[in-house]
């Protein structure tokens, strides 16, 4: 028979495991995540969010999301969320601690009470920085390639033009030689 004290001990151990489990879910998520209230205040953030923005948990939690996103966009974003209930992959710019713009896809979903009142919003981000860098690189390469093609075309035109001129000149020389022969003959 398990006594009351042992039961409490087991329950406390289980609660500690549960605490670790919920913390790990959020902490180990590779994508930047945060949880905000309907007023736009950050109530929770994970380490991936902290490395993306440069703000640690103590600096990010308790701040408005407008610390990271444009105020106008935040209003629009919250209105859209209230209307639709979720946002799936909208491209926006967020500002990090250094003031640099980071391109991201934003995903958000509202959490509602049983009375259908919104009591929180889960947000995740997909950092597009590397993709944008690659895109810019591809664009640069494409432009360089186009310029090379143009140069080649120009060169080709020049070469072809020169060939035609040579043929023309040869023709002319032949005509003149024929004329000379006639005069001499």
């Amino acid at each position, binding site marked *: 028979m398990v006594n009351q004290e042992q039961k409490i001990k087991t329950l*406390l*151990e289980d*609660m*500690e495991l549960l*605490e670790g489990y*919920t*913390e790990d879910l959020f902490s180990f998520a590779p994508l930047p995540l945060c*949880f905000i*209230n*309907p*007023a*736009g*205040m950050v*109530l*929770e953030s994970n380490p991936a969010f902290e490395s993306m923005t440069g703000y*640690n*948990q*103590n600096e990010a*939690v*308790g701040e*408005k999301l407008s610390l990271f996103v444009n105020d106008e966009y935040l209003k629009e974003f919250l209105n859209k969320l209230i209307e639709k209930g979720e946002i799936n992959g909208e491209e926006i710019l967020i500002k990090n601690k250094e003031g640099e713009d980071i391109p991201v896809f934003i995903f958000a979903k509202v*959490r509602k*009470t049983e009375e259908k*009142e*919104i*009591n*929180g919003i889960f947000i995740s981000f997909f950092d597009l920085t590397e993709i944008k860098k690659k895109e810019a690189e591809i664009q640069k390469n494409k432009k360089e390639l186009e310029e090379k093609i143009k140069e080649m075309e120009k060169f080709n035109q020049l070469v072809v033009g020169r060939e035609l001129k040579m043929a023309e000149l040869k023709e002319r020389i032949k005509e003149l030689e024929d004329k000379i022969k006639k005069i001499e003959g």
Partner: protein
Amino acid sequence: MEYEATQEEIKRLLEMKGDVRGIVFKTDYLFVLDKFGEEGVKKVEQEIEKMGYSFSYKKNINSMDFYPIGLRAVSLLAISKVFNFGKKEIEEMGKVAPKSSIMVKFFMRYFLSIKNIFDKAGEMWSKHYTVGELEAFDINMDKKYAIMRIHDISLHHIFCDYLQGYFSSIIRMGIGEDIIAERTKCIHRGDDYHEVVLRW
């Protein structure tokens, strides 16, 4: 040194009736770890041992378990002594604590507005402490203030400074504006209860 406590006072604290949940020590631990690393944590634990209580934040503390209420003040006193913390730093500790507290996360669903937080304040207190009572006394949205009162608990004034920061951080989470907190009444100054006025 802003916070002093004699051996008799520490003894009184450690013999006080009532319990506190381990989560408060976890937030202390995370604060010290963040600012001073493992070495800092060790120094604080040594200081607590000097005060007469053997204690390891990491090994002995379960967030959900109950510990002697006086240890709440002892932990803060040890931290203030080791790092020479004054009122400003202790208030800062209080401000940071709700940001990493699992207990506060349980209540996040109520963080819709300052009114909701205010209504749940008493419940939040009783989840942390088995003694004392937090009364959400008054809130005025037009005049932008809220008044919190704490009854029937007398630890040490370091705890009052800590709570001042704690309350302002919780209220800020709901309202999104900077909070100016002022302790207008305190049992340690001869009043019948503690009172904190929070303005935004």
